[in-house]
């Protein structure tokens, strides 16, 4: 009976969504015409950043991103609070069987390459697809691999919190420096360089690298907290 009601409800929803979205002119709609053109123009003329998505996320809507990073921080804190343990219970994990030596040496071989890829992705966030969030996630997957392969692998929680806090503080400091120099939070105050070179875009690469460190530390902390959860 309950299933029937749900299916009926979903059918109505599917009809509604279908009517709305198949009625749109796919590929020819211009929802944000003026705004989009402004962003595409200013990202080259004012900031010299190749990746428009990066310039929107870090500069034009940078204040949003600060809020987003705060939400991520709050989620990591809430996770720690919900799964809180007394000190001496942390550290043991329930492992069904130890991983084979192939998995162990293989992940040791892959780990530096994964970290390097993550760093590359967030350093080049203003030139190519990618950026702080993506690079940070890649680095966290490297730590996940190590934590899965070695049951006694441990990450220092204090170090993670220090990295995370410093990255967050520097993000706000750069925003405030822009505020003091030009009157807007996160306004660019460094020379912008030339388009498509590594040192271009003023504060954008710096902020994205900071976001990368912050996201990597937060996600690694989340993974570590959940993996070391044991009765």
């Amino acid at each position, binding site marked *: 009976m309950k299933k029937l009601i749900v299916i009926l409800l*979903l059918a109505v929803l599917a009809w509604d969504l279908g009517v709305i979205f198949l009625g749109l002119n796919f590929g020819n709609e211009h929802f944000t015409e003026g705004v989009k053109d402004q962003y595409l123009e200013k990202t080259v003329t004012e900031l010299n950043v190749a990746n428009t998505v990066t310039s929107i996320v870090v500069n034009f809507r940078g204040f949003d991103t600060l809020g987003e990073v705060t939400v991520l921080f709050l989620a990591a804190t809430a*996770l720690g609070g919900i799964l809180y343990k007394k000190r001496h219970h942390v550290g043991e994990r329930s492992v069904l069987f130890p991983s084979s030596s192939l998995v162990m040496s293989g992940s040791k071989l892959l780990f530096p390459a994964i970290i390097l890829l993550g760093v590359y992705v967030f350093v080049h966030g203003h030139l190519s697809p990618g950026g702080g969030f993506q690079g940070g996630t890649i680095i966290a997957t490297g730590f996940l691999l190590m934590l899965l392969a070695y049951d006694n692998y441990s990450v220092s929680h204090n170090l993670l919190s220090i990295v995370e806090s410093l990255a967050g503080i520097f993000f706000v400091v750069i925003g405030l420096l822009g505020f003091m120099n030009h009157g807007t939070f996160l306004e660019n105050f460094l020379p912008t360089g030339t388009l498509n070179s590594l040192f271009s875009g003023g504060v954008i690469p710096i902020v994205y690298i900071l976001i990368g460190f912050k996201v990597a530390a937060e996600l690694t902390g989340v993974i570590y907290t959940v993996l070391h959860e044991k009765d």
Partner: protein
Amino acid sequence: MDESLFKYIEFSIYGASILLILIGLYGALVKKSLIKIVIGLSIVDAGVHLIFVAMGYIRGGTAPIFSPGFENDASRMVDPIPQALVLTAIVIGFAVTAVALSLVIRLYKHHDTLRIDEIKNLKW
């Protein structure tokens, strides 16, 4: 690209994202296991993200990146705003999933079951 093929692509992209939203909602409403409910909610997330990015598509467009060779193609670039919004939405989706899963772990510790109909005060 000819017209009928393009129509087919349009139908399949919007159809796939609507289907993902429906599958996720079905999982969240019908399934009894708490883990499956959380998975359903993240599938809804994926569908919404797909629909958002598809709405910004411009016919014959390129990625909104001024890489070498594409410096003067601003008029052909797809809409970067939905992509930036989806980047935010993915991170928020991750945060929501992480907190929901930690609550599931706590509930499992307390009730020794993941079935939502056996946790007496959560029945609907």
